[in-house]
């Protein structure tokens, strides 16, 4: 079915089709229409799930953590300070290896208060052990939710599906809503290897020692470090698993592509812009203008941010003279986190020093500051023409100081 709806409704449709069994959420702008829609689906009987209107985001994730540990498919969504209030639980869910799916409707973080879009909220959760996926339009939101459940349950790692507040959450776009039977054929019910059960008692997430330790039967059990090593191994493995999930999705639904990143006019590009979310589609217009000017430019939109598919990203950037990272988040005191990650990928995988492209970093759109196409065009063009020579450092777009 083809419909025109908001990004939040696209996410809610994806959650319903994925047959999430327990949903917990606390209201925060711009996430609210998503969870309101889910409560409506459940109250009307359209969706068979438990909806828990919790008293905080910390509790929202607590509900999901316990529900998942008990064997149910669980979902939550939040934004900005709500996500940060969950922070302890975000680490906990990853350490406990629970396949939760959470939509992060990206918004800037206080203080001072802002309700508008940037990526600081989810980027600041980069090192928690969650898979992070950034999507660019409504179709990618609904498909992304369905794929996220499969990916999470295959690798037993929670997934954050991030999309831009307002720019995607509150705008109306046409998208395809797959049929329930189609989704059921793609996504089987959640069957964990172990769920809490009085018939088979286990004590989950107990205190671990620095060293490995034998159990009552004399078998050596993992220590904290082994448990964390396995999380890292499975995170790395998730890069390939995501490709398999994408292939399977394509077989079932007839759409999809490279799950790790999406490119536009990169084939012969001398200069490649790198970004995440709706900004990537905004930049396509700039690429077209630069091409009209005779500058061979392209854009790489990164979907999978954690685990970071460094090798394939470096391959995708191979041959470029310059890489320009446009970011709506900042690691204060250094540069955009994505820029650092891209640089590291190039350092590790792109051959000799001479062949490596220069990398520039633009910070823009913080707290919803308007991003003008002309500003993007001028900044990118300036970097293309002078980038190799210019002072390498962080630059801001749209700053009025």
């Amino acid at each position: 079915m083809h419909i025109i709806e908001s990004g939040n409704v696209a996410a809610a449709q994806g959650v319903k089709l994925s047959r999430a069994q327990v949903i917990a959420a606390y209201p925060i702008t711009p996430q609210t229409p998503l969870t309101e829609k889910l409560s409506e689906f459940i109250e009307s009987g359209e969706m068979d799930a438990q909806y828990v209107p919790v008293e905080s985001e910390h509790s929202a994730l607590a509900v999901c953590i316990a529900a998942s540990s008990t064997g149910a498919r669980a979902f939550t969504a939040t934004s900005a300070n709500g996500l940060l209030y969950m922070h302890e639980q975000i680490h906990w869910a990853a350490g406990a290896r629970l396949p939760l799916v959470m939509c992060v409707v990206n918004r800037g973080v206080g203080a001072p208060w802002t309700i508008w879009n940037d990526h600081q909220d989810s980027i600041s959760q980069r090192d928690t052990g969650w898979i992070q996926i950034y999507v660019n339009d409504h179709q990618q939101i609904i498909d992304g939710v369905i794929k996220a459940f499969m990916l999470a349950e295959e690798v037993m790692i929670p997934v954050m599906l991030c999309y831009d507040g307002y720019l995607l959450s509150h705008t109306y776009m046409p998208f395809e809503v797959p049929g329930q039977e189609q989704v059921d054929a793609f996504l089987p019910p959640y069957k964990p290897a172990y769920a809490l059960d009085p018939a088979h008692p286990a004590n989950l997430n107990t205190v671990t020692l620095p060293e490995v330790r034998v159990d009552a039967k004399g078998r050596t059990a993992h220590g904290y470090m082994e448990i964390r090593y396995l999380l890292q191994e499975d995170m790395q493995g998730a890069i390939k698993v995501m490709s398999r999930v994408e292939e399977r999705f394509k077989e079932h639904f007839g759409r999809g592509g490279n799950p790790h990143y999406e490119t536009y006019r990169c084939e012969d590009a001398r200069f490649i812009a790198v970004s995440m979310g709706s900004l990537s589609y905004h930049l396509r217009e700039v690429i077209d203008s630069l091409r009209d000017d005779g500058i061979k430019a392209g854009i790489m939109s990164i979907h999978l941010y954690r685990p970071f598919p460094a090798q394939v990203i470096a391959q995708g950037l191979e041959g470029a003279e310059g890489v320009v990272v446009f970011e709506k988040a900042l690691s204060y005191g250094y540069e955009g986190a994505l820029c650092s990650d891209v640089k590291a990928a190039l350092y590790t995988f792109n051959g000799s020093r001479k062949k490596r492209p220069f990398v520039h970093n633009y910070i823009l759109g913080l707290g919803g500051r308007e991003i003008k196409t002309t500003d993007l065009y001028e900044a990118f063009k300036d970097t293309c023409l002078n980038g190799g020579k210019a002072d390498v450092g962080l630059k801001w777009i749209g700053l009025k100081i």
Partner: protein
Amino acid sequence: MHMKTTILSLPEEEFVHPGTRACSGCGLGIAYRIALKALGKNTILVVPPSCLTVLQGLYPVAATMLPCLNVTFASTAAASTGMVAALKALNKPDIKVVAWAGDGGTADIGLQALSGAAERGDNFLFICYDNEGYMNTGVQRSGTTPQWAITANTPIKGKMQQKKDVPAIMAAHHLSYVATCSASYPLDLYDKVKKAVTLSGLKYIHIQIPCPPGWGFEARYAVKLGKLAVETGLFELYEVEQDVQRLTGASGKIADKRSLVPVAEFFKAQSRFRLMNSSQIEKIQEQINKKWAGAFEIAGDTDEP
């Protein structure tokens, strides 16, 4: 009312392995063992960091035979809600969900989530075992540490504030059941847990737990200290059903007999109260007398045969 459980009718089946990591003389060891007997096998526990985490042991060994989910400090009640929701979604309504948190995890960091779950009426039993301080981190003050107690972070003057009345806060949520218990009265505890799990919605049981290292007494006096708290009238055993409060067990008997042991005996048995002077003790004795005057009056009016 159902028959009171006696030492002879208490079930023999154990759900706690012998040899836990609790301190010797720990009141939690008694309360946990007895309450688990009342809960039975078809139960899942939810536990935040606390002395119980220590009692249950270190991975991959556990002292409890029931499944247990260890959760973050502030999230006990919310995690219990999530478990109840999952059991409902998975059509397993017969499994009981029981949260076990210490006084810090209940009265302080856990209060917001507990109040939320209580207001929603989520169907589980929340047990607070109150040893009156952050004991496994080395005896710091909590919201339920009594006034004048010396703790690791009230080391010179003692705690200046009064104990937070958590059962009263929970009763203000109009729950189906609120009760107070003491580790020193295990049969009263057994019967209250047994009753609580038959009721729907959120049930709250508050257990006072004598703590030898935290309170400052010899391990062999743990039961005696718990009894003194009740016999002096400082801590009452009661239950609240349909918003009606009723004294039970030993506290009921005190009301009937209209006699209290002087509270000084309780304070003098513990080193944490070593700085209390006689006027401070006298003031608390007056508070106790005032508190009990009403109960004595009611008991006098309705002398049962």
